């Protein structure tokens, strides 16, 4: 193959097409980067603007005199510390619960042959199609009957299982050679021990991917906490942000400051686990 291309395209011609391609595509890339990235820059500039600048719409393109106090004020004006704590409790609990329920179910579906296995797997995956809003009303009634509205129970338990996680672990466990499990069974380990001591440690990439994606989804989630909480003491950060908008609708510099700081944890997680996040999304696309 290499010979063919080098014969049909001698050196100088090739480098000229390279240069043509560069000038054709790099401006497009710059345009796309500006289009997708500029709103972020503008939000940060807005969050550092003075009250006059933001109300007259004359945001400086460069931070000439940044008003860092906007961040402190946005944090203090509402009960954000409490909301961050609530969101952390909800997100961590849901993430841990999903990792446990998904790895157990994924293990059984991948490694134990039993009647109805395929139907059960389809039954799980089908849940991914239906919008949460379709089933939200009955769950709300259920939560109200249990007196769980405005408690962590309502924020955590309905999302403690996720078919995406089951799918992810099942695919991962299917790739592990059978000999491993036979060897551990011969050593006298029961399936419970085989799962947690042998398989689960091997599935660390799946665990990292699921944890990151679930945590980010929970941190950003709105509809479920919006329906299932009533008082500000149970609000999550996203609800807090909406409440903040309600009170300070046009104080956009503070609103943008709040928007920036509640997005920071997600970006930190993305920078730490970029590969796992992107691969997790890509896997569902190529293997799903």
């Amino acid at each position, binding site marked *: 193959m290499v010979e063919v291309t080098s014969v049909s395209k001698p050196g100088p011609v090739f480098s000229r097409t390279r240069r043509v391609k560069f000038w054709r*595509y790099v401006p497009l890339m710059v345009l796309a980067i500006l289009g997708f990235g500029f709103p972020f820059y503008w939000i940060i500039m807005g969050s550092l603007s003075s009250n006059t600048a933001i109300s007259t719409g004359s945001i400086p393109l460069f931070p000439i005199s940044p008003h860092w106090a906007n961040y402190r004020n946005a944090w203090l004006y509402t009960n954000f510390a409490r909301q961050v704590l609530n969101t952390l409790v909800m997100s961590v609990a849901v993430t841990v619960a999903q990792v446990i329920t998904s790895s157990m179910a994924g293990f059984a579906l991948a490694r134990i042959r039993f009647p109805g296995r395929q139907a059960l797997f389809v039954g799980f995956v089908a849940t991914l199609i239906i919008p949460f809003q379709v089933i939200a009303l009955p769950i709300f009634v259920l939560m109200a009957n249990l007196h769980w509205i405005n408690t962590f129970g309502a924020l955590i338990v309905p999302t403690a299982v996720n078919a995406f996680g089951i799918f992810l672990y099942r695919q991962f466990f299917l790739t592990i050679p059978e000999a491993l499990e036979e060897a551990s069974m011969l050593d006298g380990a029961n399936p419970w021990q085989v799962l947690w001591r042998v398989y689960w440690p091997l599935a660390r990439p799946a665990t990292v991917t699921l944890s990151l994606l679930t945590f980010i989804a929970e941190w950003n989630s709105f509809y479920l906490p919006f329906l299932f909480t009533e008082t500000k003491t149970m609000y999550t950060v996203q609800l807090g942000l909406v409440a903040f908008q309600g009170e300070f609708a046009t104080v956009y510099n503070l*609103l943008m400051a709040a928007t920036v700081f509640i997005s920071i944890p997600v970006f930190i997680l993305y920078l730490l686990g970029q590969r796992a996040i992107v691969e997790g999304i890509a896997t569902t696309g190529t293997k799903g």
Partner: protein
Amino acid sequence: MVGRRRLWGWAALFLAPAVILTAVFFYYPMGYILWLSVHHWNGLSPIKSFTGFAEFHHLVDESIFGLVIRNTVLFVIGTVIPSIAIGLGLALLANRPLPLRNLLRGISFAPYLVSFVSAGLAWVWMGSSGGLFDHLLGVFGVHPGNLVDDPSTALIYVIAMYTWKMAGYNMVLYLAGLQTIPHEIYEAGAIDGLKDGWTQFRTITWPMLRNSTFFVVIINLIFSFRAFSAIYVMTNGGPVNSTTTLVYYIWNLAFVQNSWGQAAAASTLLLIVVLVLTVGMVRYFTKEAFRIS
């Protein structure tokens, strides 16, 4: 794979948490919503009276119903097609061995990471009069004023925000698809005279991305039908209901109007639409697969 019967008990144990939770928080609510859609209930009283399809009739008879369907169709088509097309364009660009490609990947994926609430609020500010878009369009002599307050621009503006947020996600899916195309195919194509970019894309890349497109279309349809928070924070369904979509209407019926029977009928409608579309897509794409192979 171990198939001995004594392991069935273990399988049941491992599956119990997931099965119980899925049954209680998915299949039971599904059944309940279907049951509720043929009953009348105000959300409070203990009485839920059987009404047959009356709630569906009431739903369809509401003067706003036609508008809700129109908004939903416009929103779904208006978000799915551009965000897939732009996502594919971004993937094709970011797949080239050119400088800036990692920056392009990172920046265009970043909007997907922020919540719809944050992104929605930021776009409300950027679309306000004196905001970013007012300045940008002012260059062309257009002063649209407050984009979310105008019934003629509100839906388009929400769609624009949604597309900005989802295109990078589609790029990631398409990039994964592009990496599965063997390079030899392009080289073989070059020998046959397929050299210019568009012909290569049309005859090699696009057909080879069929599986990616299948998944991308389904997942974008599912996401778009679910879009609630962006609409809630940006427009509250307004102005004059111009951004009220089906999911927003369901919430409004149940929690604002206390009309749970109608909300259940609307939920059932959404369920049917999503199921029909998904099954239709699966059948369409698998049929194609049989025809090609």
